[in-house]
């Protein structure tokens, strides 16, 4: 290991618990490995789930050092409960993109073509991506008739990957992740609904300093580079 400040080589092995929104899984796992290589004796354990689940768990005493949320609403829940150890920092953004199955069987070209006779799947208004969908819908003056309003982006994406849906509205990062199975179609109205990801250390954590170091890694240059590699936008 190199570069860890004030690191005691004799210290017992420690585990850093990072609770992060499910959409952050791939970049965070990459960052976690990097963090471990820089901190000898430290293991980074992730708990990925929906942001609201994570908040609930932290409120009930889950051993989280760091919390990264997929939206500000859930981060607010944490701060309202006074469980943030430091002020949350917005560290990345995500925007919507149309996902269609490989080959684009329904011939989708833009947002307006989603109102045609096809199987459209979106997020439910209750979850962050669904709120964003509502915003772009309004901005474009359209009214969608989806066949399903899903619980999470992953559910939307899965319907598209499996070819069940002809089109879905998901995040840019999801299209990247899905690889060849789907094609992405950008649309200008997406800029009306930019989703912000905040991160913070958690009050009462076992490793507050290490946690802050992880937050620093994510918000720092290296972190931003890794995030961008998965399609995330700048904070």
């Amino acid at each position, binding site marked *: 290991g190199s570069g860890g400040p004030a690191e005691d080589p004799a210290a017992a092995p420690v585990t850093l618990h990072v609770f992060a929104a499910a959409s952050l899984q791939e970049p965070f796992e990459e960052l976690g490995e990097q963090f471990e290589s820089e901190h000898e004796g430290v293991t980074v354990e992730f708990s990925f789930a929906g942001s609201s689940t994570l908040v609930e768990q932290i409120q009930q005493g889950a051993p989280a050092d760091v919390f990264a949320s997929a939206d500000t609403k859930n981060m607010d829940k944490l701060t309202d409960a006074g469980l943030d150890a430091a002020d949350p920092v917005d560290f990345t953004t995500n925007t919507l993109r149309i996902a269609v199955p490989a080959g684009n069987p329904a011939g989708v070209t833009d947002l307006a073509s989603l109102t045609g006779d096809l199987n459209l799947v979106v997020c439910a208004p209750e979850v962050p991506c669904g709120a964003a969908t509502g915003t772009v819908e309004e901005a474009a003056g359209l009214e969608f008739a*989806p066949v399903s309003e899903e619980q999470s982006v992953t559910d939307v994406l899965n319907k598209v990957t499996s070819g069940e849906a002809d089109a879905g509205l998901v995040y840019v990062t999801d299209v990247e992740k899905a690889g060849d199975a789907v094609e992405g179609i950008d649309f200008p109205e997406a800029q009306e609904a930019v989703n912000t990801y905040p991160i913070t250390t958690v009050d009462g954590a076992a490793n507050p300093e290490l946690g802050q170091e992880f937050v620093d890694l994510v918000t720092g240059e290296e972190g931003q580079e890794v995030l961008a590699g998965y399609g995330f936008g700048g904070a």
Partner: protein
Amino acid sequence: MRTLPRWILLPAGLGALLVVLPLAAMALRVEWSDFWALITSESSLAALRLSLQTSLTSAAACVLLGVPMALLLARTDGRGMSLVRSLVLIPLVLPPVVGGIALLYTFGRQGLLGRHLEVLGVQIAFSTTAVVLAQTFVALPFLVLSLEGALRTAGTRYERAAASLGARPSRVLTHVTLPLVLPALLSGTVLSFARALGEFGATITFAGSLQGTTRTLPLEIYLQRESDPEAAVALSFVLMLVAVAVIALAHRRRSA
């Protein structure tokens, strides 16, 4: 007048506590002032209606398909049957989400069967039919397993007597076998109804989530949790009440 050893009260009590305490803890969190408003919202009522309707249909489908399966498993022996039994029970062990994926691979647009149905203009995914399919898939083993056990325990002496009196197999089935295992059939049906009522993972994966069409109560609860946890707790409480009512009703009929 049966006597049971007294010590079983301790583990039995512990077991009851393990189940009852969480339910009590949840009931304590219900905001009673808003309760009525929360559970009578349009979306809640739609979900409740859909849930009851699909679960009842699924329970009926389970009885229709599962009773014959249980009979075959209980009354025929052989190498093959044991494999069939294992296969039939798999939905029990599969995480429902995986079950949903498997259903997609079968009945989805590009699925094993679905691609042929698509040609015929039939689309199952995103329809209420898909919900029923998903619920039946996960609930069927409950009925089969509990009924098979009862059929084995009940034995065949009454069936033999009935055949000796000239009753054809169908009559033996409807007039002797099924009435004799009625308690088990009822509790198996309750089990499968309950499992269908609580089904979440397979439904969301295979059927999607649209109000009035595919968004059942568990999906509604899960969704409300994101925006309105109070509503979610209130709805969970309603689900509990429905379950208690169904179970109590089934038991009343059984002892009657």
